[in-house]
């Protein structure tokens, strides 16, 4: 359960997000949809504790992210905006490094790593150094290391950005698998059809503000458009109701 309550963040003159509130519930996939530069990444960075909001609060399973950052981060699995890897470490080493940073016990670490490697279908690359990995292979490593501590809440910033069809499909399967396990999933995207297909709940954000929130059907009716894409464009341009 993720609760974002009325957060605002300003960088100098630029108001990146303003009074953003949203909730993501257990066992549901919540999509944060918005054009590039709408403030999606800023909102998520506030959520996972890297930026301090000027006002408002964020709670993960009831734990305040700013008062108890490490405790809240322990409950989160995060795929951040930046996907950097250590070129000299293998995929498996990346996963176990993050597991250890999360305090996963040594005897569970190997088993959990193997499970993720199987789940993400990365057996053939697990023991290779990540130097020279393809975009899709890199994304799998990032996802696996974000999930190694079995978080109850997963936050993914543009998880399918720049991936080929095969990997994109794999990522979607993973999200559905996590949903099956009653995990809270919040992910951002600028791809309409992706959000429409996967999400139980959609939040449309543009120019740092939430302009619409609801199920696919609800969004369509808010915008007064039959087609979700038209609804998105209308809402994004700020001439919604």
């Amino acid at each position, binding site marked *: 359960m993720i609760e974002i309550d009325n957060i605002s963040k300003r960088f100098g003159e630029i108001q990146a997000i303003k009074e953003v509130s949203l909730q993501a519930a257990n066992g549901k996939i919540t999509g944060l949809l918005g054009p590039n530069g709408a403030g999606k990444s800023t909102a998520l960075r506030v959520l996972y504790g890297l930026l301090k909001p000027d006002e408002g609060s964020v709670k993960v399973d009831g734990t305040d992210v700013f008062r108890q950052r490490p405790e809240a981060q322990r409950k989160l699995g995060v795929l951040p905006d930046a996907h950097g890897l250590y070129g000299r470490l293998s995929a498996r080493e990346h996963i176990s490094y993050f597991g250890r*940073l999360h305090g996963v016990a040594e005897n569970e670490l190997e088993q959990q790593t193997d499970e993720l490697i199987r789940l993400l279908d990365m057996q053939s690359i697990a023991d290779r150094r990540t130097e020279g990995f393809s975009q899709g292979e890199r994304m799998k490593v990032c996802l696996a290391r974000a999930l190694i501590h079995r978080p109850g809440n997963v936050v993914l910033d543009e998880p399918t950005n720049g991936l080929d069809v095969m990997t994109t499909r794999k990522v979607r399967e993973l999200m559905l698998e996590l949903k099956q396990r009653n995990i809270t999933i919040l992910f951002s995207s600028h791809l309409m059809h992706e959000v429409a297909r996967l999400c139980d709940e959609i939040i449309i954000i543009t120019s740092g503000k939430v302009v619409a929130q609801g199920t696919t059907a609800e969004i369509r009716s808010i915008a007064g458009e039959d087609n979700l894409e038209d609804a998105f464009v209308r809402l994004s341009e700020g001439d919604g109701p």
Partner: protein
Amino acid sequence: MHPIQAVFRKELIDGFRDKRALLTAFLFPALAPILIYGLIYAIIDMSSDAENLEVAVINAESAPALIQYMQEKGVEITTFTGNAEQAVKDKKQAFILEIPGDYQQRLRDFKTTIVPIIHDSSRSDTRISLRRLRDLVREYNGQLSALRLIARGVSPSVIRGVVSGNQDIASEEQRLISLFSMVPLYIMLAAFIAGMGLAVDSTAGERERKSLEPLLVNPVQRLHLIQGKWLAASFYAAIGMLSTLVLSLIVMLNAPLEDLGFIFSISIQQVIMLILATLPLPFLATSLEMLLGIFAKSFKDAQSYIGLVTLLPTLPFLIDTFNPVTTQDWMYATPIFGQYLLMTEVLGAVELSWLAYASSGVSCLLLSVLLCFLTSRLLSREAVITG
């Protein structure tokens, strides 16, 4: 596993696999023997030049007594004709002694005779030989004057009012250490260079390859991240420095120092003292490099000004060389300078109190811990992610 340990372990593996950084780190200690041997041979060469003094003389036949005196003292005399100034300028001759044509005449008239030495004072390699030649001429003058006085029934001591004596208090080892002041400098440089690759890679490198944001998402205190990275970088810096230290000592023990009239020996106890004295240095070096590294956005950016950090260990050497100061207790507590002092004094077999070790070690480590703390504060800035 504690987060510090997890970070330390990961950075250690990462650093070990970075072949290029590893090469630069350990090329430096590996070059120590070459440097030290080169230095010793240069010194031996210079001093043997002075022993086998060879003097080119113009018009030698005019002063047979002086020439004979010099030959008795082991000087090899060659005769020179031609343009003396040009020959010295062209470095064909180190220097030339010119006997004036009226030498004998002036001697008979009891007039002062000047024998010019044509030399180039900007050349440092001939300085010792030149001084010996001057001393010989002065000695000959003393002998000649004494003979003249005795011939007139006057004691030569009449004209020797005050004479300076010579009592060198430097121990053999201390004279040796002035010879080897380069070695402590080199050891300190090793501490700064060996860990630099990893210190930069684990700070500026994290930002450059965009791995910092995923790292900071983990529920780990920033200070723990920095401490793990710091210990890993210090580990390599310490290995680099200690291997330089050990290699240097081995070379010094095996170098032909007896040719210089020195005997160098070192006890196990002294070696332990040296290690104790220098061990805080790598920790300071890497904490400083990491602090600068976290400011930089890229590896290249960082390297450009971290290079300046390597000038720091040369400071004590320069101060010691150009403005020698009397050692005072507070100097030991000055990081870097304190370690330099301890090293030169342990090598010079000077007995030191435990207080000197304690104050230099504690101040150096305290400063490093403070720098790490500062680095962790910088890591908490939002600009580290958004900038």
